[in-house]
């Protein structure tokens, strides 16, 4: 069956060109600065120094990470019970519910986020409703809360779908076996179901956390011009300011932080899996 091996070769070349090379280019752009006509560029670390010595940038980085973390936690707390409930339904119902959750994702993210502006604005339904039940003069649009709502709204479906996939793949006989062996429902859940759904949880976390850290249109649309996340800083460097080297350096920093975090999450997942095996 050696022949089939060759099927992977074209993609090897493609992946080097289209996936690996771009990453190398970002790193390259991040350590150069434009020079003169004789030497077109020179190596430098000044962009990194600039980022790490400016408290304003660090504050924005911190804000991006913390808002992404909050989004992820909210999505997990909401998404797990929902996915669990769906996975327990009969197949026809499951399909319908998954369809209902998937359907909004087919409608453009920006369009859906845009629609929130009308709802969250001061004379929109939500604020009107809040003032009706006694909370007057609440400002939601162009605040952190609005950005958080926008992020949970956009990314919660990813969490639900990922967890649902791993829950529905689960072999039901394992749960029956646990019950037969005398485990109660809580034990079954925490010792069998939850560990087995970990892959879904982990990829759900990744699919929520990653886009929320780097999102720049949600803060721009719902947070207003003065709400900056790290994604906005990068966009600004590339689209408006035109300082690609500095923008690349910020991208490298954010990519490294992400990689580190994801490695930690995966390690934690493996560790818990190993412990499960032992116990």
């Amino acid at each position, binding site marked *: *069956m050696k022949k*089939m*091996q060759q*099927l*992977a070769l074209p*993609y*090897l070349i*493609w*992946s080097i060109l*289209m*996936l690996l*090379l*771009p*990453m190398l280019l970002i790193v390259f752009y991040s350590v150069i600065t434009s020079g003169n006509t004789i030497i077109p560029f020179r190596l430098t670390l000044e962009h990194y120094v600039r980022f790490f010595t400016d408290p*304003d940038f660090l*504050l*924005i980085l911190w804000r991006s990470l913390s808002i992404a973390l909050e989004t992820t936690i909210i999505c997990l707390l*909401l998404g797990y*019970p929902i996915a*669990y*409930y769906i996975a*327990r339904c009969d197949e026809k119902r499951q*399909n319908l519910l998954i*369809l209902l*959750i*998937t*359907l909004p*994702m*087919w*409608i*453009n993210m*920006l*369009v*859906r986020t*845009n629609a929130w502006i009308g*709802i969250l604005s*001061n*004379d*929109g339904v939500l604020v009107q409703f809040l003032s009706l039940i006694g909370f007057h003069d609440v400002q939601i649009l162009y605040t952190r809360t609005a950005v958080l709502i926008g992020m949970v*709204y956009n990314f*919660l479906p990813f969490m639900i779908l990922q967890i649902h996939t791993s829950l529905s793949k689960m072999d039901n006989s394992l749960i029956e076996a646990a019950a037969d062996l005398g485990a109660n429902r*809580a034990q079954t859940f925490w010792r069998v179901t939850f560990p087995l759904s970990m892959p879904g949880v982990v990829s759900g976390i*990744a699919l929520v956390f*990653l*886009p929320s*850290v*780097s999102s*720049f*249109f949600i803060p721009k649309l719902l947070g*207003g*011009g*003065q709400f900056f996340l790290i994604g906005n800083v*990068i*966009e600004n460097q*590339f689209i408006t300011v*035109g300082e690609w080297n500095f923008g690349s350096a910020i*991208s490298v920093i*954010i*990519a490294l932080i*992400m990689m580190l975090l994801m490695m930690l999450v995966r390690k934690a997942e493996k560790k818990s899996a190993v412990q499960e095996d032992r116990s």
Partner: protein
Amino acid sequence: MNEKRRFSGRTLLVLSLLFFYLPILFMIIFSFNDSKSLTHFTGFSLRWYDAMLKNHSMMESLYITIIIAVLATIISTLIGTLTAIGLSQSGKRMRRFISQVNDFPLMNPDIVTAIGLMLLFITFQIEKGFLTLLLAHIAFCIPYVMLSVMPKVRSLDPNLADAALDLGATPMQAITKVIVPEIMPGIVSGALIAFTMSFDDFIISYFVTGKGIKNLSIMVYTMSKRVNPSVNAISTVVVVLVTILLIVINVIPVIREKHKGDRIESRSSRGWKIGGICALAAAVLISYFGIHQSSSLPYAGQTLRIYMPGEYIDNDVVSEFEAQTGAKVVIDNFDSNEQMYIKVANGEQYDLLIPSDYMIQRLKDEGRLEKLDRSKVKKTLKKMNPYILDVAYDPGNVYSVPYFWGSVGIVYDKTKVDREDLEKEGYNIFLDTKYKSDIYLYDSERDSFMMALKALGYSMNTESHEELTKAYDWLKQCVETMDPEIVTDEIIDNMAQGRKALGLIYSGDATYIMSENKNMGFYMPKSGTNIWVDAMVIPKGASNKDLAYAFMNYINSYEAAEANSLYVGYTSPNQKVEKYLSTHDFKGINAYTPRTDYAADEVFEYNDKTRKEIADLWSDVKIAASNAD
């Protein structure tokens, strides 16, 4: 315990479905709204659907979104599946390498992938456009396909293919007849993920596209923040299309299931899903090409590519131009002159640009503009207000023909702001804590620094580092003590609704606001302001100059200029139009007639020395504002 969990699970599910569908419901309702408002439903109308159909860029973005998604799905599914099959037989090193490289787009934030691809295309001088967009989509879709195909391939019996070959099947047959049917569920779900990812993508597309090729997301993002309910209309169309498609692909299997057994059937039913998507795409393709049939008009079949600020033109005027010439007009929008500059400087091709005065000066000085053929625009220039002709940015109008002009001033709510405060304080009213949390700043470095410099009594064209630093301190004090909202075009609708007391604004936007809300006033401080001109220029390398000239003349003809000025609210350079509108439709609205011949007013001049300093300082002010709360 279990009942409880089921109950809370169900409640959460119902609530989250409400949460998911609420904005969509709003979008659908307000797409039928009679007025522009997104919060008050004033009556049923189809005007936004009409506007949508007339808007070529909008229809084209829908078409691009679908065609890119279909092509990217087909190609990435094919490559992803074959690679997954090949990899299952490959050595460990190869498998590890590919899975690690595949992790880049999966594990990196989208913006990093996007920038990487953008740098790739720019470094190797591949012109950004449809091809780069498609390549990028394929690049980030394949890993998702492989992610869902790989587990299925791995769970195959490794002897299966061998058995097929032993029994005389060719390798091709072994794949299509034996392996593929076994892993079909993985392929289908991979394809669906790829389609959804591509269909919904914004960030990557935003950075890698060019030549005016834009998908729905980019169109919404760059359309400016001014409310345009046609977006709701086109989104509603998408909702309806998607719903029909999903119903069809989910109902057909149910019907067929009644006839046959279910396991095998559910597989072939998934084939239906893909078939359905392809059919939809084909239908869109056909209808799209059906619309654009050539005719015998002077510019039939030609395309005019314009790059201009968002919501700055009446689409009916564009449609009329298309009807008269037979040409197709494709409009791209920018947020700021700086953004336009970066795109044009990086080789983006247009036939016509509409930047502001100082930017025209920069483009001209750098040799990026085409000299105009005087004989072609002579008559049009004659109709114009001489005050805005032959200005320092383009002496003798060698390169530019004015499009709109105006000033910058303060829009204020007469019921909340004391006129005396304005007279006394001028721009310093933006530091008056009486109006704390009740002001808008405009997200533009040049206008903000103009305000600060004028408030301090300096020239807005100063080169003095000291004066600029003082202006920076002024702005910083404003954002730190006044809690302003820094906005762009959303100020227009917000002030028209009377949401804040004060804002820095362009005169044309003030005209629109005042015509919508009688409580609003416009004030030009005595310390002077910026008189600006936005003008049409032809960039070097424009492929359709004749059509660009035709547009320059058409847009300044009386009828078009009147309709356009009336729609946007900005002051027409056509003297007759200005005179008529200021005494009729915009009667009593002082913002429509900018102050002329006032000594303290200035025109912004391009200065390469201060440009970067001001850009950096403004970026710092914004970051300070962002960190103020």
